[in-house]
């Protein structure tokens, strides 16, 4: 099994080749403004190593590109929002809880129509077909290219959303449609928000994935492309194109999963020091601990399950100010290799401090030889104090626990920290996120209503269905583990109706081995 994992970060683009779960070679190249030439650079550098110039089975990319577009308000497009469920909820229309700047970029038009369902599956009001047709014509006339549709209780009965999509496909066939039930669970506003964000990234997803494919082809690789998702599993690129929001938190997840894989530790604190930020999280049974509830993305409330992370503005590219001495939160970002002192630039960065202190040896060391010791010590103390405080904040237990220090800026992590039993640094740890992408698993999900079964039997039945789907998508059956179980009783249906959603994940099956029975 040979796979290339790529992580496109704010500062660096990392690529690794993994053969049979072992890292053969890893490289790090600056991320470029156009993203793809950085990927091409990294792939060419990786393939230049003879051991890495092999035929690969898959290329897996983890990218923060889509979440950055939302956070930075760039490359989001105007969309139409169709809410189905009137006359309920009228006082809280789509975008009602969005930051105004982002809403003004995305909100192309809002249509609020009668329809939707009650919690027990009965129709709430008859679906307003005429209203849908009229909305579709207006969307066409306005030239909008992407639409989000959200109907009340669509996770229980998606028929209003699918009807809307059919009508849109008839009247304006070139418009992309995001249906909220594909993205979220109960919670109309949060599910609708996910659909609105997803729709707003449609054009970006198409161009980005096309550019990824071109970079891979240009580097001479012929292998299927996967993108990683928030939960540490992969999606085929074709599917991922339709669901860019599902990759929102994949960077952090990849990094933590990669750290677990490289160290063999399944329970530990993790700090991933990048060029711009440090992400601190906790590994539990090899997976990142998830945030408790609603997660805000660029100021928008969503219900994505994301890793519980504390992100601080400290990284290898962080600006170092002298009066008073302070590291971060500003960073040179992807310009590290041109702007930092050791690379010939004129901006004092955390990397320069680390080189001057002898923590690492990169760039031209003579360019930081004259930095005053007092400044070096004070800057390191500031960085260490920030890490110490925030690692302690993310710890959930009083005793000492190991800390995995990964990422290109891991040299900024001191060798001792209070509350930490040992600091674990691993080979290829600077590319942990690319490793996490390469080892990402395939998942399968079942989401349906069971009747006349006990809770345990219903969950077991759902798990079997999810497992079959994961195997179909390319997972090895004997590696499957249950990632997520959710059950919700539905009243007023005969026979103890229970809606169960189960998600399982496992390793990508080795195509050279016969499928396990």
């Amino acid at each position: 099994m040979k796979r290339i994992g790529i992580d496109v970060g704010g500062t660096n683009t990392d690529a690794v080749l993994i053969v049979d779960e072992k890292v053969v070679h890893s490289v790090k190249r600056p991320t470029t403004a156009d993203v793809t030439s950085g990927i091409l650079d990294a792939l060419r550098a990786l393939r230049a190593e003879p051991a890495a110039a092999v035929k690969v089975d898959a290329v897996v990319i983890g990218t923060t590109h889509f979440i950055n577009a939302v956070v930075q308000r760039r490359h989001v497009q105007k969309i139409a929002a169709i809410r189905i469920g009137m006359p309920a909820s009228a006082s809280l229309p789509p975008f009602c809880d969005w930051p105004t700047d982002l809403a003004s970029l995305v909100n192309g038009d809002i249509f609020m129509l009668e329809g939707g369902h009650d919690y027990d599956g009965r129709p709430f009001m008859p679906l307003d077909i005429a209203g849908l047709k009229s909305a579709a014509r207006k969307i066409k006339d306005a030239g909008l290219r992407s639409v989000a549709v959200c109907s009340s209780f669509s996770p229980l009965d998606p028929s209003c959303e699918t009807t809307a999509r059919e009508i849109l496909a008839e009247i304006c066939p070139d418009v992309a449609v995001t249906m909220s039930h594909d993205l979220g669970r109960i919670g109309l506003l949060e599910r609708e928000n996910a659909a609105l964000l997803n729709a707003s990234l449609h054009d970006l997803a198409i161009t980005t994935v096309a550019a990824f494919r071109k970079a891979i082809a240009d580097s001479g690789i012929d292998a299927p492309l996967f993108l990683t998702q928030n939960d540490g599993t992969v999606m085929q690129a074709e599917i991922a194109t339709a669901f860019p929001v599902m990759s929102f938190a994949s960077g952090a997840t990849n990094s933590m999963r990669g750290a677990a894989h490289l160290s063999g530790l399944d329970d530990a604190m993790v700090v991933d020091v990048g060029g711009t930020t440090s992400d601190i999280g906790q590994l539990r049974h090899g997976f990142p601990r998830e945030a408790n509830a609603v997660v805000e993305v660029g100021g928008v409330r969503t219900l994505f399950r994301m890793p519980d992370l504390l992100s601080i503005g400290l990284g290898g590219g962080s600006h170092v100010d002298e009066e008073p001495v302070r590291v971060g939160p500003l960073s040179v970002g992807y310009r590290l290799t041109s702007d930092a002192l050791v690379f010939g630039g004129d901006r004092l960065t955390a990397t320069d401090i680390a080189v001057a202190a002898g923590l690492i040896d990169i760039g031209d060391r003579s360019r930081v030889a004259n930095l005053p010791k007092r400044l070096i010590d004070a800057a390191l103390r500031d960085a260490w104090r920030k890490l110490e405080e925030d690692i302690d904040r993310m710890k959930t237990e009083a005793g000492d626990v190991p800390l995995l220090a990964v990422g290109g800026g891991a040299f900024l992590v001191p060798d001792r920290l209070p509350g930490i039993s040992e600091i674990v640094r691993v080979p290829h740890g600077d590319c942990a996120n690319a490793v996490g992408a390469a080892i990402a698993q395939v998942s399968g999900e079942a989401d349906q209503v069971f009747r006349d079964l006990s809770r345990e039997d219903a969950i077991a039945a759902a798990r079997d269905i999810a497992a079959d789907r994961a195997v179909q998508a390319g997972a090895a059956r004997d590696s499957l583990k249950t990632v997520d179980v959710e059950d919700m009783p539905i009243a007023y249906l005969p026979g103890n109706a229970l809606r169960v959603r189960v998600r399982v994940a496992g390793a990508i099956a080795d195509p050279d081995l016969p499928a396990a029975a």
Partner: protein
Amino acid sequence: MSKAELKTISLEEIEALAVGAWILGTGGGGSPYLGLLNLRRLYAEGTRVQLMSPLDLDDEDWVAVVSNMGAPLVGQERLADSRNIARAVRMQEEINNIKFRAVMSVEIGGGNGVQALMAAAHLGIPVVDADCMGRAFPEAQMTSVAIGDLRPYPCTLYDPRGIEAVVTKVPSWKWMERASRKICVEMGSIASTSKAPRTGREVKDWGIHFTTTKAIRIGRAVQEANRRHEDPIAALLATEGGKKLFTGKIVDVARRTTEGFLRGTAMVDGSDADRGTKLKLSFQNEWIVAWRDEDAIATSPDLICVLDSVNGHGIGTETIRYGQRVTVVALPAPAVLTSPRGLEFVGPRAFGYDLDFRSLFSPAAAGA
């Protein structure tokens, strides 16, 4: 009508109220977030809501008692619309041919903590700084006005589809609960309701006073501790004289829906000082009993609050799930609820548990 002193509620106070009401919801009553969104929009349009002391009511004033009734889960799909609750109040005025002086929430806990403000914003009358539970409870008879044996009818119910219903007469509060619950379930398990109108005298005698102010105080304590990166749960316990019961992680949740109620259990696996032990929480919309092994260590009507260990915000019985890190605390119940008659309505036996109520707090600690 005497001239009462009114205080304009600021948006900042409404934000704090939403946090405090969610904690006082003891897991039920739904999140006040959507009500808060409604009020933010109304405030942005220039609307302001005023708060009046229950002691400033005249005996013969009429007070509308409002609540959004039903399953909070449904409220996450049929979003709170401030006009609906105002319509339920207008129905009472039309039926009884009265004019309301003010409006108050049946319960300060959960989403209903802001319902009175939403109604008041459309009706142009003030909100009384009081409620009938001092927290949230699942059933209509679990109120101070039921404990006080006040008249339980009529009750109006409004559904945005245009369905309007009135329960004109019932022999008891329990019958009001059963009749109105049936209508509510038919409406899709959520309805805007205006309960039996109360006189100023009744609110002064049987209302649980100054609970809006209390919810704002709790919310502020949590918000300010978070701003200062201090422990919000310690701040809450210090402000309200509460007790920490348990710290840990949710490891199992079992739910079933019966007759519009959400019943079930949640299991917490201890961490820190509670490592190696487990706490079981039984709920009926709200947290009702906390068990350590076979012992009930806290029961209704003491307030059992499950809080996010990090930010101190409340966690609902509908949204609690595996892996959440929680701190379980208890807060003292209002005195009317812990009286012998009060316990008949809201003690453990009222929820089907054969347990005696033993408060975690001395009677002196129990305040409104």
